[in-house]
């Protein structure tokens, strides 16, 4: 409600992992259909982190689906705190996907990344970190992915259906969430069988509803999350929705698209639950 209880967002001390304005981040070599080796992004964070922006630039061709994990800890002892961030490659090395979310990491922490792509190539990964000011809310511990399929790798296919600009049927992303989430993010991209060239021909954008509740009783909590097809210079940004979802919740999504061609309309989506 307007004028309600303070949300508790106040960040400061922004720092970037980029070496310079022309850099796209640290090159992280991806294995094909499995996570590759960890690559250090930051040897030791200069200050506490309360907010993180992750930017992922795939360098492979447009047929690749790209996923990135962020981990903390010493080499060979990395612990995953951010799972399976999806990036869509439209034009290789030009498009990027971006995530912005609360994430708490103490000063002096080593942060690294590893990638899992359709093909063995590389992603450039950049971090922008912020400390929290006086009224910043209580900490968050990490990010779970919902709907990520490891072996493909891909998100979950969502078919907008045969009717143009009409929401299709809900697709389950989680039968029962493993933890309480204090917020979520949504990312859309390539589906499990086609590639971004498919989507480029299809004159999207796509609107996605995220819902909670049992099949047949879904209640939309995020209406019309939007995504437009990757072009030569486009980017995809996952908005942070501070909507709590308790553990044990069924989460699903449905989509609408301006394209109803069976071979090109299906999109892939991954949802992310931020937990404390």
């Amino acid at each position, binding site marked *: 409600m307007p004028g309600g209880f303070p949300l508790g967002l106040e960040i400061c001390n922004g720092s970037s992992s980029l070496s310079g304005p022309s850099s796209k981040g640290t090159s992280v070599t991806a294995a094909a259909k499995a996570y590759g080796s960890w690559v250090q992004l930051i040897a030791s964070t200069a200050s506490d982190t309360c907010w993180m922006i992750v930017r992922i630039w795939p360098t492979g061709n447009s047929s690749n689906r790209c996923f990135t994990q962020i981990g903390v800890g010493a080499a060979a002892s990395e612990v995953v705190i951010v799972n399976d961030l999806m990036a869509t490659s439209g034009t290789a090395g030009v498009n990027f996907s971006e995530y912005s979310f609360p994430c708490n990491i103490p000063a002096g922490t080593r942060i690294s990344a590893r990638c899992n792509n359709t093909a063995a190539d590389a992603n450039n990964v950049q971090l922008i970190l912020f400390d929290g000011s006086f009224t910043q809310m209580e900490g968050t511990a990490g990010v779970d992915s919902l709907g990520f399929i490891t072996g493909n790798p891909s998100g979950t296919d969502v078919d907008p259906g045969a009717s143009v600009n009409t929401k299709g049927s809900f697709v389950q992303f989680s039968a029962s969430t493993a933890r309480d989430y204090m917020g979520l993010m949504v990312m859309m991209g390539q589906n499990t069988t086609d590639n971004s060239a498919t989507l480029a021909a299809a004159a999207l954008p796509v609107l996605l509803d995220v819902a909670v509740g049992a*099949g047949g009783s879904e209640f939309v909590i995020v209406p019309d999350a939007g995504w437009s097809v990757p072009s030569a210079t486009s980017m995809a940004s996952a908005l942070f929705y501070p909507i709590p979802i308790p553990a044990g919740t069924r989460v699903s999504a449905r989509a609408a698209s301006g394209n109803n061609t069976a071979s090109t309309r299906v999109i892939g989506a991954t949802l992310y639950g931020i937990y404390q």
Partner: protein
Amino acid sequence: MAIIIFRASDGSAVSYIPDNLTIAQAQAASQLADNATLASKGFSAIDGQPALDATHVWDTASKTVLTIAAKKSVISLLIFWQRFTATEREAIEGGFLTGTQPVKNAIAAFKTYLQSAGVADINDAYIQTKVQQMETAGFIAAGRAAQILV
């Protein structure tokens, strides 16, 4: 197996549970609304269905999941042309430049069609027909059309 929830009136799918559960099990686990709630919304549910994927789609008429042929790929123009060898591409180009007028017309129209689409949808009957004709005309060897049109 999976559960599909659909509108009883027209069979259109409303929701999908990919887990191998019966309706009773899903309802007991709160993954599926109870029968009274489904009925109040005009919905029905069917279990024991194949999971929805590239070769399994929901059919509104029969209100079941049907098996379909796998879709062929939809690829960028570069990847499409890379499926031809350099020799084949040059042979096609030669046909465009020096062939009979009908051959020139066919190749030019094919290239214009692809360029307009921006991608090569191998499910497109026109693309399939033209690549087959390239094989018949000898621009690509016997059997190559099947290798390209995947």
